[in-house]
Each structure stands twice: as structure tokens, then as C-alpha cells.
């Protein structure tokens, strides 16, 4: 059952997601992937903006978090969101393949990690974890 999502202060049963990625191509693709699954989504360009949008009172069912970003990277953003008490599903998405780097990202508080590029099947597996 999809979690109640709050978007713009109004409750709806539609799942919501936040895309956190500094790459414009990836933001466009992730937005389209989420749209195709009927998931309302917004995008920000770095970890600080992800933290700030939560500080403004918005929450999301799913956060797709890139690792390497300027200003604040995904590892630090994930840590801060968890410290703020954000319990949304946070899925790390990155091109990094070294075990040590991925482990550090996961230990920051991820619920899932997927190697980029993100595909529909990878996104569906993430969403199933929310619903399951």
C-alpha cells in the first residue's frame, strides 16, 4: 500500500518522490521514469537543497539520491536527513562501483542502492520495497 504522500501541503494517495541529482540529463530521465509509474516528483540539484526542501516541511515517500554532487554530496545529505528524523525510503543511485564507497553511502542511511543508469526495472524494485 503506497504511503500517504504530502506534496505542497495537500495530502493525496499518490506516491511522491524527490530526485536529488546535479546532472541535468539524469534528472530528466529520473523524472520521466517516475512519471511513467504515476509518481509525483520534484527535483533538486544537490544535497543541501534536498535538506532545505525537507526543512520547509515537505516530505516524500521516496528520495532518489545521487552520491557525487557539489555543495553537499549524497552521503552527507542522507546523514542529515536521517538525523532530522526523515524516514522516507532513500535509494542511493550512483555510478560508483567501489565497494568501500558504496558501503559508506549505505551506512549514511540508505534503504537501497542502485548503480546508474537507473532503469525502469531498477526503479520498480525500489518502489516494491516501499509497498512491500
Amino acid at each position: 500500500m503506497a504511503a500517504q504522500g504530502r506534496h505542497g501541503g495537500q495530502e493525496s494517495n499518490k506516491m511522491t518522490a524527490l530526485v536529488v541529482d546535479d546532472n541535468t540529463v539524469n534528472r530528466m530521465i529520473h523524472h520521466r521514469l517516475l512519471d511513467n509509474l504515476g509518481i509525483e516528483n520534484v527535483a533538486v540539484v544537490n544535497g543541501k537543497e534536498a535538506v532545505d526542501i525537507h526543512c520547509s516541511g515537505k516530505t516524500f515517500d521516496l528520495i532518489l539520491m545521487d552520491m557525487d554532487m557539489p555543495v553537499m554530496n549524497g552521503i552527507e545529505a542522507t546523514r542529515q536527513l536521517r538525523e532530522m528524523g526523515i524516514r522516507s525510503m532513500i535509494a542511493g543511485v550512483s555510478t560508483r562501483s567501489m565497494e568501500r564507497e558504496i558501503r559508506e553511502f549505505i551506512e549514511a542511511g540508505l534503504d537501497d542502492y542502485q548503480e546508474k543508469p537507473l532503469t525502469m526495472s531498477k526503479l520498480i524494485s525500489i518502489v516494491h520495497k516501499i509497498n512491500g
Partner: protein
Amino acid sequence: MDRNPIRRQLAIMRQSLFDQGYLDEQFIELEQLQDDANPNFVEEVVTLYFRDSARLILNIHHALYVHFSPTLFLFLFIHTHKVMILLLFFRERKPFDFKKLDGFMHQFKGSSSSIGANKVKAESTLFREYCRSANAEGCMRAFQQLKKEYATLRKKLEAYFQLARQTGPLETATRPK
């Protein structure tokens, strides 16, 4: 097999992009996101990629080739003695910043991978290996090759989308044979 000759040509063009290794499965993932509401999604993403990556290529070029910096430039024109003196245009060589280069290429590789630009992605990987081993000459060579592959891909995709606009996109995204 589509009887329309232009659509057949489009299908052949598309197949050759996969057969020759320019594109990989990720391109098909993008095609599958295309629908009646977003009929030009793939072309839009690819256009964005070439626009965005051009900036990264310029940054990499700058970091590789413009590694001299003027530290002092002083120009004096002395009227009384009718002498024009151009002084102290110092240039000092900056060492290669392999970390910066690797950072740019990491971004470029990420975008290339997201659109299925297979050969470009491979050259990016090679470049990054040279960065990690601090091999400046290797970086320069790999960058030249990368630019060639990038230019070739751009030319082929532009031709493909130009033809696609004439015929409308292929109905289904099919995996390469």
C-alpha cells in the same frame, strides 16, 4: 519489415548504431519511456546531453591544454621618451590537476552512460584510468579519441533524429538483433 522505405532506412540506421557499438541497451530504456504524451523524449534527452556535455568537454580541454597562467602582466607606455615598454608578462606552468580532470570526466561519463553512448563511455573510462595513474600523455591521447567518438556519435544521432522527424518514431522499441 516496414514497407515504407524511409521507415526501413530509419530502422537500418538504428540497428547499425547498435551493431557498430555506438549505442547500448540504455538507449532502448530511453525509447521505452517515449509515448504519445512524450513522443520526442529520446531526442530531447539526447539534445540535452550534447548541450550539457559540450560544456564538460570544454572544461576538460581547458584543464588539459590551458595549464599556463599569467601571473603578472604590466604594460607601460612612456610618452616622454616615446618608448613603449611591455613588461613582465609572466607565465608559469601549472601542474596537471588529475583530480579535477577525473571529476569532470566522472560527470561526462555519467551522462554518456545515461543515454547509452557506449563508445564514448568506454573512452571516458580509459581517460579516468590515465588520470588515476597520473599519465598526462595518456590523458591527452584518450581525450583526442574521446572527442572523435563523441563527434561521430553526434553526427550519427543528428542524422537519425532528422530522419525520424520525417517518418515519425519507430512504433516499438526493439532490442538489437
